[in-house]
């Protein structure tokens, strides 16, 4: 999978870091570091993370909702 997070939009709600902790990690209280090239095995968790982002900052390929 390919992931990019628009860190301009990110406000550190951290829903992604809770729901897909292998792929999204907080550095301190608010800053987000993430894995831009995660394993396909992380797919469901990353879909949860992308849907939960209150500012829609997470973009993936394949897109959320597409069949694998």
């Amino acid at each position, binding site marked *: *999978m*390919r*992931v*990019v997070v*628009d*860190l*301009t939009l*990110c*406000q*550190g709600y951290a829903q992604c870091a809770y729901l897909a902790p292998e792929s999204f990690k907080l*550095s*301190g*209280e*608010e*800053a*987000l*570091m*993430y*894995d*831009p*090239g995660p394993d396909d095995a992380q797919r469901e968790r990353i879909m949860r993370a992308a849907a939960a982002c209150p500012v829609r900052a997470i*973009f*993936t*390929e394949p*897109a959320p909702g597409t069949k694998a």
Partner: protein
Amino acid sequence: MTGPIAIVGAGLAGLRAAETLRREGYDGKLTVIGEEAHEPYDRPPLSKQILTGWVAADHTTLPRLENLDDVDWELGRRAVSLDLAGKKIMLDDGRAVPYDRCLIATGVRARPWFNETEAELDGMFVVHTSDDSRALRQRLAAKPRRVLVIGGGFTGSEVASVCRMLDVDVTLVELADAPLSGALGGVIGAVAADMQRDAGVDLRTGVRVDAIESDERGRVDGVRLSDGTDLDVDVVVVALGGIRNTEWLTGSRLAASALGIGCDAGCRAFDGNAIVTDDVFVAGDVARFPHPIYGYQMMTLEHWRNALIQAEIAAHNMIAKEADRRPHVSVPWFWSIQFEVNIKSVGVPSMADQVVVTQGSTADRRFVAAYGLNGTIVAAVSFNDGRYLEFYERLIQEAAPFPIRLDNVDQATGDDPVPAAFPPQSELTNRPTVVLTGHSPTEMRVERKETEETAA
């Protein structure tokens, strides 16, 4: 329109432009030319999670948000000139790529160390490409004795932060009085300096590196600073900013220089006579465009989000009818992650003459500070307090008065604003007041606000 369209530059801006063209219904011939032999990839992780070793250097390929199967990708090819009258781009292998419209998004490259011999030494690094990042990561993983970072801007500070996360000794040398002072001014820079020292960075300000020393095998083994100090270092990271990739346009008769390629608010390039072209567009780090909030100052921004938004607008404008074109007027945004702090800024802090902390506490490393110019707010910065910045964005769009009085809010000190202490910049002139309407960066228009003076 039928095309063909050529995009020079296969980074974030080039990719987003290609996606936008396809999404908005352009299905003609589309060529994307990129100097690096990689699919478009994202740069911000290169100075963070790649250097810590969490993510591999070639794992930042950007996701494609549209189907781009039908695009001619010329990767690992350099554009060497542009024929404005003949409407073609010449490549380094001798081929010409004709265009009906083209977009220039060639970005920047890392400024190399000024001494060419020293720059070639084993142990000298820049951080801009994925190859750079892979090489530096390898060296950091081998636990160097001491890393020297030259330049206390955002990239240099992020590299220093990674070194400390890896428990590697690091010295950061910055000519100004504080790190980040070019972008955020000396007052906020002083907070950044404290952050660095608390994390164990050996921070040296007000000095520069005079010479890099090497052993008999051509490996870096020391540096001499301008104050006479010698340091024992084996890795040097040169973080002195970027050089805009515009040299290839010398002779093209476009308004291209080291400052960028001049363009209008619709991303159309100016020619050398400052007459706007109708078929050459610019986006991203190379674009030098007028911003209505800042008195129509021409500005070039090396900001991720600017590349993204400007590329969308340029691509839209390339194929839209004239009445449907959009201006690039969104307020600039920026972020940096360092020392476990999320630094975000909205607006252009370096336009300001004054700064004041409006929320939170710098000692806690959680605060918001607002910047003003001649009594109007022009920017704001947050350290781990980013949820409030959209409030400040609105104030900036409305040309609200500065300082903002938030007397009852979050440790308000009642302090007066102080000079922001930016290293010297050119004078700014008076300007009309403008107000933005609309919520989406691609739906904004500009309208002139009547002030008491203009109504009189």
